[in-house]
């Protein structure tokens, strides 16, 4: 418990009281494995968190390539979320229009704040229609919108009537909720309500999947698609990296949902299970071992001998192809320690990959996770709602008369899940079970804690975001961004594991570390000579 106590010791009584439940040091027993999460950040602590808009526009709906996403508000929010997240996309058969390189904003001025911005928003939609003729427009609200009372949903409805397109308004004002997480939920609700289930493009195979919570950062989704395709598994949609609204419309016809980022999109997974009967499987394509395990679980779900054989062939082939590289990087990295602070599920996922490389994660945490991301979904019934969470709408869905179909009965699912070889269907155990005694878990980490943890725990590398990257590096610790991969990647799948191994090795072994201290710090200025010789 030493590190945790030392860390908390520096806080004033008030901050201590708040933070003590967000920082835990794991023990052998099951005690002390419970953590506080998804509560307000304390003003002034330099949290790494962003806002609701960032979660809705920046994360979930921004990557939709055939959608003209208009940020309704002053220019900044749209500007900062323009091309800054590495959600790669290319036009495909569903859409020849790629809006991803563009930024659209209503660039509200003082008079719009005073007199209301709806007129300007409607005009902006008219102009967007005339210029680009999109099939779908989404409106993302920034802070002032809710305050001045612009009704973006009503504007969206009017645009639908006027142009016969799909238009969706999101009330994702920055102040809603306590982090990006509220924005994910709001975006999930909109996508579920207005998009999924409105198309009828049938899958081409009987093994079709959506990969939920895959934003194709650095091309991760494409590497996953490549592997799954080799196995004979059809990927209908990535949610929402390289995705199109057009294609998401038929997402409900998939045979199985795979879930990568649990936090940002578990709502859709659950709602699709209820409404369409589609099971979801929490997968992890980060790491060679994790990818193999996930592929085998998918095969087990589909229960087809030919597919299972094919999966084993692909695993054998792919692992052989990366074996030498992985062994090399392992030889460089074995015994090194890491800290990981990320958003969604990466702090969990990357621990498995680091383990592949012989490394140990000693500190981990999330920016905006909920307790279920740490402790597993079993904890959900125990999570108490507070005023901030209640402000984020939770929608309920009912089984769809036309499309609901169950692949397995409840008994069959229970059988699939049972035993050592059971698969984690429709459930997630969270990050903490992956970690060992003595490891520190920090929720909603701040600058101060990051600084202190580096001093106390001294990991060899810290995987975090851009806001921390350079202060960590300045302190002499290797630092790589695990949100943007420092513009490298993909890190998913077999080839991604090698890329990651190379990048971590590079960060630890760069010759520059040897140049930090100038030689004169160690060498005396005066070279002495023995006296008395003359």
């Amino acid at each position, binding site marked *: 418990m030493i590190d945790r106590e030392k860390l908390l010791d*520096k806080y004033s009584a008030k901050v201590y009281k708040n933070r003590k439940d967000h920082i835990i040091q794991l023990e052998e027993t099951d005690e002390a494995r419970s953590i506080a999460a998804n509560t307000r950040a304390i*003003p002034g602590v330099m949290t790494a968190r962003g806002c609701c808009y960032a979660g809705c526009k920046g994360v979930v709906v921004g990557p939709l390539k055939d959608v003209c996403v208009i940020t309704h*508000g002053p220019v*900044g929010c749209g500007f900062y979320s323009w091309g800054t997240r590495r959600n790669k996309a290319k036009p495909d058969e569903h859409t020849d229009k790629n809006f991803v390189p563009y930024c659209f904003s*209503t*660039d509200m001025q003082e008079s719009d704040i005073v007199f209301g911005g709806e007129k300007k928003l409607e005009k902006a939609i008219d102009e967007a229609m005339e210029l680009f003729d999109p099939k779908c427009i989404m409106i993302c609200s920034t802070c002032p919108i809710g305050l001045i009372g612009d009704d973006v949903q009503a504007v969206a409805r009017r645009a639908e009537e006027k142009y016969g397109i799909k238009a969706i308004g999101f009330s994702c004002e*920055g102040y809603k909720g306590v982090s990006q997480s509220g924005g994910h939920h709001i975006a999930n609700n909109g996508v579920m309500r207005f998009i999924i289930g409105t198309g009828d493009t049938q899958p081409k195979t009987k093994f079709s999947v959506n990969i939920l919570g895959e934003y194709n950062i650095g091309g991760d989704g494409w590497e996953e698609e490549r592997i799954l395709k080799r196995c004979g598994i059809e990927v209908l949609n990535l949610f929402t990296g390289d995705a199109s609204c057009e294609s998401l419309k038929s997402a409900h016809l998939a045979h199985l949902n795979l879930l990568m980022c649990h936090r940002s999109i578990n709502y859709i997974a659950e709602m699709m299970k209820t409404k369409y009967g589609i099971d979801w499987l929490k997968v992890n394509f980060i790491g060679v071992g994790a990818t193999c395990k996930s592929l085998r679980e998918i095969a087990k779900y589909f229960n087809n001998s030919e597919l299972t054989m094919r999966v084993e062939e692909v695993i054998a082939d792919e692992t052989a192809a990366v074996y030498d590289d992985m062994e090399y990087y392992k030889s460089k990295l074995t015994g090194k320690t890491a800290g990981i602070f990320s958003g969604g599920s990466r702090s969990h996922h990357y621990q498995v990959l680091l383990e592949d490389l012989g490394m140990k994660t000693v500190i981990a945490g999330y920016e905006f996770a909920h307790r279920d991301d740490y402790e597993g979904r079993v904890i959900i019934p125990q999570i108490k709602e507070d005023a901030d969470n209640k402000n984020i709408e939770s929608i309920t869905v009912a089984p769809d008369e036309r499309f609901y179909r169950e692949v397995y009965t409840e008994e069959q699912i229970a059988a699939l899940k049972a035993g050592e070889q059971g698969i984690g269907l429709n459930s997630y155990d969270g990050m903490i079970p992956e970690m060992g005694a003595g490891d520190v878990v920090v929720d909603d980490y701040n600058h101060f804690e990051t600084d202190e943890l580096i001093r106390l725990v001294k990991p060899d590398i810290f995987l975090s975001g851009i806001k921390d*990257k350079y202060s960590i590096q300045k*302190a002499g610790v290797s630092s790589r961004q695990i949100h943007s991969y420092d513009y490298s990647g993909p890190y998913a799948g077999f080839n991604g594991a090698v890329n990651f191994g190379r990048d971590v090795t590079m960060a630890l072994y760069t010759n520059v570390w040897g140049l930090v201290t100038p030689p004169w710090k160690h060498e005396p200025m005066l070279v002495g000579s023995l006296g008395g010789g003359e």
Partner: protein
Amino acid sequence: MLDLTPKTVKERSALRVNPCKTCQPVGAMYAALGVKGCMPHSHGSQGCCSYHRTVLSRHFKEPAIASSSSFTEGASVFGGRSNISTAAKNIFDMYDPDIIAVHTTCLSETIGDDLGSYIMDMDIPEGKIVVHANTPSYVGSHINGFFNMMMGFMNYLTKKTGTNNGKTAVFPGWVNPGDIRELKRIAGLMNVPTTFFPDQSGVLDAPMTGKYDMYPEGGTTAEEIQGLGDSEGVIALGEIIGAEPAELLKKKWKTPYTLLPMPVGVTYTDQYVLALRRQSKTEVPAELEAERGRLVDLLLDSHQYTYQKNVAIFGDPDVVIGLTSFALEMGMTPKYVITGTPKGEFTRRIEALFAKYGVTGCTAKANADLFELHQWIKNEPVDLLIGSTYGKQIARSEDIPFLRAGFPVLDRYGGPLQPIVGYAGAIRLVEQITNVLLDRFDRDVSDEDFEIVL
């Protein structure tokens, strides 16, 4: 790339596409980082602070510290008084800055939070300072945020004791640390004691030592800001960004000022040197004159490659005015010159430059965006594009040589460490401009025209 951009330009009045500006708070944050021991504080939702820190870190490849009031729905309804007082307490406890510089956001501005009175009621530890500036995101651009924060500092801190401190205040405007170092070097050569305000050198280009210091050596001190009222005079660089702070200093503390364009290129650097000479009343040293001579020599040597080349320049008003003047000195034709910042003064300055050099068929526009610039280029192409990283999309789409300058440059390294101002900065620009033009020339010519000597 940018395949949806049509060639036909249509008037837009509501939809901003691919903006050439961002909002006020990031300017306030950047200005505040140029004050020693200062924690910039964003009074609004967490996202603003996160976005601003991110863009600054991505440009400078440095830590950019700032804290947030972390507004929730409750605070948005009831006001952010308790958020800011809690924040200030925690910041002083945890991060121990000398100063907290609060700026507002569109959220706190819309609900009408009265920062002045909140700060007055605050329990501020002995010897510590809290200042604020109003920076509504829906007015002007990040440039306004920068000069509003400067004025915020001055309103709180600047005094006039009546004793002249013998210093000349220099407002460098929104430039990189490398530019500030160059401006200081020139002032040093001219033997003028200066106070640079703000001064991000040493902060956003802090050296790697193996030890992280939240408040690195660098930045204008509170005492120096206090002393602005006692300074000999002010040289405000950047006619758009410098005008209001210089005017404030004159109005409140009777300090005379000289307002100059950002010293990019020969003429504008000459003006800076002349202004410094008026302060020091000493001759321009041979060293500086020789530097100028080397620049002019280089310009003559290379003029054939830039003569009448069409260039499009975009970015923040003052840097664009500077680059346009220098492009004209190099014999180029600044075909399209835009800024996203809505300032009519910008257009007048650029058009005056067109007239001075007698170039025709050129367009200047403030409150413009990159979508429109791209459309113009589709109609009449240019040989070179100069601006922030976002220009790379247009450059790729139209296959135009592209030089990064201004803010933000998110995809290249080392830029902020080096100047574009002063004679040295101009020498760097000539090298960069001719390099991109000649690299392109070499790429395009046939084998028989591929020259070893150029």
